[in-house]
């Protein structure tokens, strides 16, 4: 549900990121609206749903188990969290990167000429024209980002929670 609601923000993000000039949000909105209408903002929705499903499934299946296995060795702390996030991130990148490549391509084409007919069509086209390795483009940054994101979030979250609780303790 949330994926459907926020698909437009991902279309905007993808197009701004790939533009080498100075594309603005308003500029992208205008171009997509003119060429594809409002539905253009839901380009890549199918691979977006597929990707999220694969990511969640892979992470649910690995995170808790890895963390439990690590706790006896490193303790229930940041390192158990980081190790479990790393394994979960790696597994989810393995299963979800092809869907992610298709999603990015379809979102990037919104408002331009139609290159891929559907999610499955795109998967076959990329595979046959560019080879199987093309479906794993972006694997390294996906994995690196996962580790960085989780570490930053974990540290910030813990510090902020303690800070907020402390601030409230002085003023009950």
């Amino acid at each position, binding site marked *: *549900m*949330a994926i459907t*609601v*926020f698909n437009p*923000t*991902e279309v*905007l*993000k*993808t197009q*701004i*990121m*790939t*533009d*080498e000039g100075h594309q603005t*949000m308003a500029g992208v909105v205008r171009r997509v609206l003119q060429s594809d209408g409002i539905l253009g903002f839901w380009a890549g929705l199918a691979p977006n749903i597929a990707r999220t499903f694969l*990511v*969640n499934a892979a*992470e649910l299946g690995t*995170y808790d188990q890895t963390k439990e296995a690590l706790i006896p060795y490193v303790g229930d702390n940041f390192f158990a969290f980081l190790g479990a*996030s790393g394994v*979960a991130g790696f597994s*989810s990148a393995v299963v979800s990167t092809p869907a*992610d*490549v298709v999603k*990015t*391509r379809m979102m*990037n084409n919104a408002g331009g000429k139609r290159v891929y007919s559907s999610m499955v069509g795109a998967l076959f086209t990329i595979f046959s*024209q*560019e*080879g199987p*390795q*093309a479906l794993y*483009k*972006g694997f*390294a*940054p*996906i994995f*690196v*980002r*996962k580790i*960085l*994101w*989780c570490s*930053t*979030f*974990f540290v*910030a*979250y*813990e510090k*902020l*929670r303690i800070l*907020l*609780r402390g601030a*409230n303790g002085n003023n009950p």
Partner: protein
Amino acid sequence: MSSSSSNQHSTTAEALYRFAASSVGAIFAETLTLPTDVAKTRLQVQKSTASAGSGQPYTGFANCVSRMYREEGARALWKGLAPALIRQVCYSSLSLVLYEPVRAVYGRAFTSLSLRKDGTPTFAERLLAGGTAGICGVFRLAPSQ
């Protein structure tokens, strides 16, 4: 103030702190890691066959980041930050808004199943409501991208 009501208060406060901390933490993490997302997106749209219209294709992750920095400046590494943060903030707000109504639904279900004795929501209810609202993203482990 009775001990049960002060207990209730501190649980609510704790939930709020958790929400605030996770929202700010997510914004922080999103901003810090955005360059890797820009590199990922650019590498993914690059066709393996034809060379890109604007010169040499990127050869990999590190090459993409360093070339973007040299050719387009450091600010280019944070392209798309605005829509990325809009999405993050919407996710957080949505799950905060959804938490109470979702908990109320579970509350009615628990009462009708006579699983709860008085008017106080049980721990299980809070957990379930948090989990359901969390599907929208806040307490989710995965980065939104």
